[in-house]
C-alpha cells in the first residue's frame, strides 16, 4: 500500500455560483470530527469534514430531502435544482432521455438480503459485486491505448472532481489533504480496496466460518447487542469490518461521481454505454443506501440524478434511495426533458 494513502478527504470547491438555498446550515451532523489519519474511519472520509476548511468556504448546498424534513425549504423543484449549483446548460446525464437502463424490473430484488443470511456476509457479498461492476467501467477510461494515453489522464482530469463543486483529496502520510489527478486517485483507490477485499482477515472466504442471521422467534442465540458485538462478528468478520465497507462504498461512490461528471459523454455516451452505467450505478445507490453504507449527505454530487430516478420510477417508493430523493426536483427534471 502506498504511504500516500493514509487517509481520505474531500472538500468543497464551489465559489462560482450563488448558493440557491443559501441560508441552510450544513446537513452534516454537528458532531462531525476533524480528519483522522486512519483511512478506514468513515466520519473523516465524508465530504467537507475539516472544520477549518468549513469556516473558509461558502455554506454547503443543502441535501434537499433533509432540508425538506426540517422544513426550511418548502420550495419548488426549480428551487431545489438551484440549490445544487449545477452548471448551465445542465449535464447531459440529467436529461431524462439518457437516464435509462439496460434492465427492466425492480433492482431491489438483487440487493435484498435473504432473511437467514447474516448481515455481515451479505454486506461482504455486495461490496465485492459492486466493486467488480465499478471496475468494469473504470477500465474503459483507465486503460491505456497503444500510444500510452488513457481517456482519464492528468491533463483531462487534473483533480478527482465531481463537477465544479466537488473534488476529493487524499491525506498524505502527514495527514495533509493533497490533490491528485483522477487517474492517480483511482490507482490508489483500486490498490486500497483490493487490499481489503483480498485480505482473508477482513473478507474471509473459508466456508467453515459461516453463520446465519439471528431470528428471535426461531434461533436461541443471543441478540446483537453490547459493545462486544458487531455486524459480521459471528461470521468471522473483524470489528472494523462495517466501517471498512462504508469507506469502500464511499470511495466507489466518488469514482462513480467522477465517471458521471467528467466522463459521461466522453466516452460512455459516445460508446453507447450510458445505459449500462446507469443500471450499475442505480443498483449501487439502491444497495448502498439500503445497507446504510452511504448517508444522504454523502450522495450530494449525484443528488439531482437520484431525484430524477426517484421521479421516473427507477427507485421504488419503498427504497431508502427514494426516501433520500427530492421528488420535486426530479419531477422538474422530467418536465425539462419533456417527459413529465
Amino acid at each position, binding site marked *: 500500500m502506498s504511504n500516500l494513502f493514509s487517509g481520505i478527504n474531500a472538500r468543497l470547491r464551489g465559489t462560482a455560483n450563488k448558493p440557491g438555498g443559501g441560508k441552510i446550515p450544513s446537513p452534516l451532523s454537528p458532531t462531525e470530527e476533524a480528519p483522522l489519519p486512519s483511512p478506514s474511519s468513515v466520519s473523516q472520509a465524508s465530504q467537507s469534514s475539516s472544520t477549518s476548511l468549513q469556516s473558509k468556504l461558502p455554506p454547503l448546498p443543502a441535501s434537499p430531502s433533509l432540508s425538506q424534513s426540517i422544513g426550511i425549504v418548502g420550495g419548488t423543484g426549480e428551487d431545489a*435544482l438551484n440549490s445544487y449549483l449545477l452548471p*448551465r446548460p445542465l449535464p447531459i446525464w440529467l436529461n431524462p432521455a439518457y437516464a435509462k437502463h439496460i434492465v427492466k424490473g425492480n433492482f431491489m*430484488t438483487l440487493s435484498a438480503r435473504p432473511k437467514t443470511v447474516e448481515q455481515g456476509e451479505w454486506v461482504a457479498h455486495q461490496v465485492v459485486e459492486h466493486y*467488480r*461492476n465499478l471496475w468494469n467501467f473504470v*477500465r474503459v477510461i483507465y486503460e491505456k491505448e497503444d500510444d500510452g494515453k488513457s481517456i482519464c489522464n492528468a491533463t483531462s482530469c487534473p483533480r478527482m472532481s465531481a463537477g465544479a463543486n466537488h473534488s476529493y483529496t487524499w491525506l498524505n502520510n502527514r495527514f495533509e489533504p493533497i490533490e491528485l489527478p483522477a487517474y492517480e486517485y483511482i490507482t490508489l483507490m483500486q490498490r486500497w480496496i483490493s487490499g481489503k477485499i483480498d485480505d482473508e482477515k477482513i473478507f474471509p*472466504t473459508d466456508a467453515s466460518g459461516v453463520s446465519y442471521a439471528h431470528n428471535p422467534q426461531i434461533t436461541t442465540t443471543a441478540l446483537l447487542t453490547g459493545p462486544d458485538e458487531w455486524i459480521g462478528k459471528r461470521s468471522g468478520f473483524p470489528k472494523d469490518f462495517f466501517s471498512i465497507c462504508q469507506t469502500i462504498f464511499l470511495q466507489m461512490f466518488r469514482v462513480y461521481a467522477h465517471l458521471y461528471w467528467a466522463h459521461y459523454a466522453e466516452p460512455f455516451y459516445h460508446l453507447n454505454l450510458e445505459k*449500462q452505467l446507469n443500471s*450499475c450505478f442505480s443498483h449501487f445507490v439502491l444497495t448502498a443506501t439500503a445497507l446504510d453504507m452511504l448517508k444522504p449527505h454523502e450522495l450530494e454530487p449525484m443528488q439531482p440524478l437520484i431525484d430524477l430516478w426517484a421521479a421516473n420510477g427507477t427507485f421504488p417508493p419503498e427504497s431508502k434511495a427514494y426516501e433520500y430523493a427530492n421528488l420535486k426536483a426530479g419531477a422538474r427534471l422530467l418536465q*425539462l426533458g419533456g417527459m413529465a
Partner: protein
Amino acid sequence: MTSFDFPPTPNRCPDAYGPITTYNRLRCSQVAHGFFLDGKQRAKERFERQNEMAQRLEDPNLSERREQIWKHSGRLEAKYLRFLRTKEGLSNYQTIKTIGKGFFGEVRLVRKIQDGKVYALKRLVKTQMISKDQLPRVRAERDALAESDSEWVVKLYTTFQDNTSLYMLMEFLPGGDLMTMLIKYQIFSEDITRFYSAEIINAIEAVHNLGFIHRDIKPDNILLDRGGHVKLADFGLSTGFRKSHDSSYYQELLQKPPAQPDNVLRSQNRNSVNIDEISLTVSNRAQINDWRRSRRLMAYSAVGTPDYIAPELFTKQGYSFDIDWWSLGTIIYECLVGWPPFAAENPYDTYRKIVNWPHTLFFPDDVPLSPIAIHLIRSMVCNSEQRLGRNGASEIKNHPFFAGVDFSSLRNIIRAPFVPPLVSDVDTSCFPVDELPQTTTTDNNDSSSTGATGTGRVEDDQTPTPEMTLPFIGYTFKRFEKTFV
C-alpha cells in the same frame, strides 16, 4: 421563464476511439449485461429457496427442527456467497494426476487446497478454439449446463479462466470412460450392452429435454460414476470447435484428399461409380488391431474420430436431435462387435464410409449377434427420416431389444455390471494415467488469475489480448450446491 436547459444532443461517435477502448466497450457492455442476467437468475433461485424454507418452518411436523432449518439455510446461503466471492484460480487446486486428455487440453484430478475436496478439472486452451462464430453457442450451452440438474450429466461446479485457458471444475467420476472399458474388454455381452445403452438413452434424453443436441456422443465422452452408472461428459462446451464437426473441414479434405486426388474428385460426384470401390474389408483382423492401438491417440488428436458422427453432420443440409441416436447406434454396434461400424485406417476413409453407409454398414459373420440387436442397430444407423428416436426416446425404449428394462429404475435401483473397485477418493485405477504425460503441481503457478476483485493488479502490464479475452466473457459460472460442506 425557465433557467435550466439541456445541451443539444451530440452525435455519438463510437469509432473515434482506439482499439483498446473499442475492445473495452464490448467487454464492458457484455459484463454489465451478464451481471444483471446472472444476478436476476441467482436472485430468483435464492427467493425460491427462501420460500421453500419458509414453508418448512410452517410445517407442524417439523416444528422441532425449525431452528435447525433456519440455521442450515443461513449457512448454506453464506457458503454460496463466499464461493461467489472467492478468488478462483489454478493456485487453489493441487494436481493429483492427469486422468484424461482431449484436443483442447487435459483433465486433471485435483484437490481443492482450502477444503481438501476432490474434483476433475478440465482445461481448454483458448488458442485452440478456432472458430469464433461458435461462441454464442458456447455461452448458451454453458448456461444450459449451469441450469441442468440432471443426474445423467456431469455436474459442473464452477468455471474460471486466465489469460491462456478456460477451466471447468467438475465432479470427479472415478469409473473412467466407456472407451477405456472397451479397450480393456474389447467386447460386451448383449446384457451388458443393454445396460449401458439403456442408461445412455436416458442420458441423451435428459440432454434433449434441456433443448440441446449433444453432437459428440462417443465412448470417451461417456463416463462412469462411483457406482458404475453412466454420465455424459460436458456436452457441447468444446465440441462445437472441433474440426471434426466442421463440415467445411471435410469439404476441404474432400478437395485435397491424402493420396488419391483423382479418386476423390470423382467421388464428389454423386453419380460416380467409384464410391463402390471403397474397401469393405473391415473385419480384417490386422486392420482392427491397428485401429485399436491408435484409438486413444485418435481421441487426443485435433481431428478426433468421426467414427460415431451421423452423415448429415458432414453435409450442409442441417441436422436435428436424432444425430445423437445415430451415434448411440454405432456405439451399440461397437460394444457387440468390437469395433465401430465405419472403422478405417484414417478419418478420411471413415468419413467416406459414413456418407456411404447403405453400402458400408455390415455385420461380420464371425461375430454372433442376435437378430433383434441387428434390427436395433439398423433402425438407428440409417437415414434420418427413418431413424428410431426421431419422435422421442420412447421409440427406442420400446424396441424389443430393451424388452423388460425398467428405464426409470436403472440408475438408482439396478446394480451396474462393473462397479469400480476403489480404494480411496483419489483412486485413478480406471484411467490410463501411465499413458498420459503427468505434470507436476508446480505447473499450477504458470498462470495468473484474476483476484476476488476481478480487476487484477492495476500495474499489471500483462493484459491479455482482446482476441483471447473478449470471446470468453460470460464463461465464468458458479453453481449453488445444496451439498456444499
